[in-house]
């Protein structure tokens, strides 16, 4: 017999076999004590009387010692049989009556013995008990209370098991959700890379056509470096702002070759923000958008400024260009694949806590703003 049921040390009391052993030992001890005490009466000794034995003196409530296991067995059988609840109510009602009847008969039998009445008087004494002071229905109440307690414990156990299952499911769901998010992010990133590559390759083609082969070579070299670094952490959904800016710097190196001296890139970064975690490749699509719809649309435009600031619990990222204002056609706004991706990723990762906004900057230029929770890798 193993005292442990696998739930660890101290769980012996969950093992019904120990309880059975305890009950059997108790029953044997109780019976032996009662018989030993009544031995003189059982042997019809000269001074022996049933009146002085524990069988007469002990309260009848001791019978519950024998009734309780029966009740537990009945409950277990009912639970296994999965009967209709009305059937269970009926059976428990019948058992309550039977146990009450047994108590009354036990009391009457004891009176028959102690008063030396003939056994044929047992029905008379049973009736006499009612006539004298009414039968006691307390055993029925005790029985029903016990049954209610057993059901309560049973329901509590089921509820606890349900709770455990629910939390396990929740954990599994969360893990699954994380995997799904990661898969989605990867998919988005996979959408991003071809787009960027397509633009860059167009630039290289353009440089080659214009016999600017030297510059085309530089771009190819820069692009190679960019792709290498990109592939290094493509499995990561998040990255530090510092690495993100470094990556962005590589991107601007390529774009600077394309636009030669016309492009001026400024970084206005609060050093405290460098360790902040941001979705990887978050800024590059905004920068690319600024280049495509701002710098390249207006020959006079040349400034592109990236800034990062902390505002309490929030991180504010801005990509500014001094190109032309946004077109009046709202539908055109945010239609670009890069912006759509960025917006989708922010929603996926932060929900309502993050925001992406594209607006005109007075008196000139366009600002792309991202607000997201300020988190570092050590944040909870």
């Amino acid at each position, binding site marked *: 017999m193993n005292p442990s049921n696998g739930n660890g040390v101290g769980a012996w009391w969950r093992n019904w076999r120990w309880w059975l052993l305890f009950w059997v030992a108790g029953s044997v001890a109780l019976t032996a004590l009662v018989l030993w005490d009544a031995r003189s009466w059982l042997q019809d000794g000269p001074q022996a009387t049933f009146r002085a034995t524990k069988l007469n003196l002990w309260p009848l409530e001791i019978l519950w010692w024998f009734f309780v296991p029966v009740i537990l067995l009945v409950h277990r059988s009912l639970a296994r049989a999965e009967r209709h609840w009305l059937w269970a109510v009926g059976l428990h009602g019948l058992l309550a009556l039977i146990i009450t009847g047994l108590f009354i008969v036990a009391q009457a039998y004891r009176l028959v013995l102690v008063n030396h009445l003939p056994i044929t008087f047992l*029905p008379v004494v049973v009736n006499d008990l009612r006539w004298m002071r009414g039968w006691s229905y307390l055993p029925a109440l005790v029985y029903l209370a016990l049954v209610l307690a057993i059901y309560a414990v049973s329901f509590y156990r089921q509820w606890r098991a349900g709770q455990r299952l629910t939390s396990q499911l929740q954990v599994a769901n969360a893990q699954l959700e994380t995997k799904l998010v990661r898969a989605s992010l990867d998919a988005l990133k996979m959408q991003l890379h071809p787009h960027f590559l397509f633009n860059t390759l167009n630039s290289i083609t353009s440089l080659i056509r214009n016999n600017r082969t030297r510059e085309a070579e530089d771009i190819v070299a820069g692009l190679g470096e960019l792709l290498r670094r990109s592939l290094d952490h493509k499995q990561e959904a998040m990255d530090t702002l510092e690495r993100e800016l470094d990556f962005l710097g590589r991107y601007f190196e390529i774009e600077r070759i394309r636009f030669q001296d016309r492009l001026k890139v400024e970084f206005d970064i609060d050093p405290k923000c460098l360790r902040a975690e941001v979705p990887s490749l978050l800024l590059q699509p905004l920068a690319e958008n600024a280049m495509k719809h701002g710098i390249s649309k207006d020959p006079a435009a040349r400034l592109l400024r990236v800034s990062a600031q902390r505002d309490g619990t929030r991180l504010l990222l801005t990509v500014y260009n001094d190109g032309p204002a946004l077109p009046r056609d709202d539908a055109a706004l945010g239609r670009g694949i890069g912006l759509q991706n960025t917006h989708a990723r922010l929603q996926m990762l932060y929900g309502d806590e993050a925001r992406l906004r594209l607006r005109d900057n007075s008196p000139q230029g366009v600002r792309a703003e991202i607000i997201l929770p300020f988190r570092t890798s050590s944040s909870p």
Partner: protein
Amino acid sequence: MSLALLVMVGGLALVFLGPRESLPAEARGRQDRDVLRIVYTQALRPDPHVRMLPLSTYNQFILSLWEPLVECDPLTGEPQPAAAASWAWSDDHRLLTLRLRPDGRWSNGDPVTAQDFVRAWQRLLRARIDLAYMLFPVKNAEAYHRGQREHPEDVGLRALDELTLQVELEQPRTTLLAELSDPLLAPMHHSTDQALADQAFYEQPAALVTNGPFRLQRANADGYRLESCPAYHGRAGVRLAGVQFIRANSRSMGALLISAGKADLMPSASFSAERIWPTRRPLTVETELELGVVGTYFNVTRGPLRDLRVRRALALAINREELIEESDRARLVPAWSWVPDMPGRPGLKLFNEDAAEARRLLAEAGYPEGKGFPVLRMALPLWMEGNPYPAACGERWFKELGISTYVSYESPDKRSERFSAGDYDIIYGSLIATVPDPADLLTTFTMPAEFSETKWRDDEIIQLMAEANHKTGNERLSLVELIERRAMAAVPVVPLMFERRHTLRATEVKGWYEDPLARQSPKRLWLESAPIAPLNNPHTGT
């Protein structure tokens, strides 16, 4: 499980619906031939100075084992020789000299001596007041009991020689001789005190030495079995071979024991008339009026109760018929006087009920509709909590007169303290006579005021009682009636109810006689036509 359920339901149905009538009564076992079996339900001790209820069982038990100096004729109430063969009064009726019978013997063969009575009575004087008061008429007995006298020799009890006992009284008391028939005044062998203390009689019944018609044969938790005592002087006149006192768990079980043929007699307060007995054993219920009274005592020194009109109003407002509960109709009867009917002396009708007159008297006393009347405190002992009658009296006074009563139940110590201080208005209680004499119940009105419940004193009543104690016969009865009329007119008490006593008897018990003091001695009874079971009957009695 279904089969087990079926068996249990079937078994219970057999028991619950089994036969309950016309069962065979058990035939008397051979060893019970001529043994009278008396059922009792409360603890019984073979000690004359431990009185048990009902008194009739105590009396029968003690009078089976011990014999007092005299016994009263149940018909006339006249004292007859018992342990004493003769007696003589001094001229002033203050000295009683009793001569013991020379053939009086203890169960161990020792002669019964005068010193055995002196020893027993000195022991009684050291007992509780409700027992010791029996000897208070004896000179210095009350003072000795109350600790005002140290030496027992100061008490007016003297063993002049082996067979001569002298009793000196404080005052003449013609009823004293009858009072000596009380089981409390039985003699005690010098070994008895020790035998009772160590309860040696359970192992050695002969250790309990007695002088009565029976001696102890066996004692255990189921009761006592007595056998005819060979040393008893009147053995030839005793027709029973023995008496068995059988303990039953309740009156109901006792009645079933008799019905089953296991017992023959059971005194009890009441039996339900409509009870159907489970056997056809011939049984009868004997009924007799107890020589006692239940009533309320007014503390006449307190507030409005000093006014006779108020006391009369309270008495007139009671409705006795209404007061007695339906379940007690067989046990209680309305009391219109302090002394109930007695053989040769019917009870008087000294009270009536008239609520309108009660209200008029109360208004005349200055309390119209009870206005301005203080709350009456009724102090009762704790054991009386289940008694509905004190509160019912209070209800009646409130309903008819607008007088409120506060009923309090208190511990003996608290109650004794309250009694000593006189801090109560009303006491509810009962009084039981110890001699078959109407004056016995009236002596409560001659007690010193500080010891009486009513704190009431009437010198003329004391004078009349002293006079009556010198008289006998009709002359005495006339004086006693005068005392009762005078006392009831002053209303220090209100008699409410008399009690009836019942005895369930198998008709094979013969020689039963009425006794207002419930002292039917088993030595006067016998068994007749009792069917005897053949040998080897498995049911061989208890």
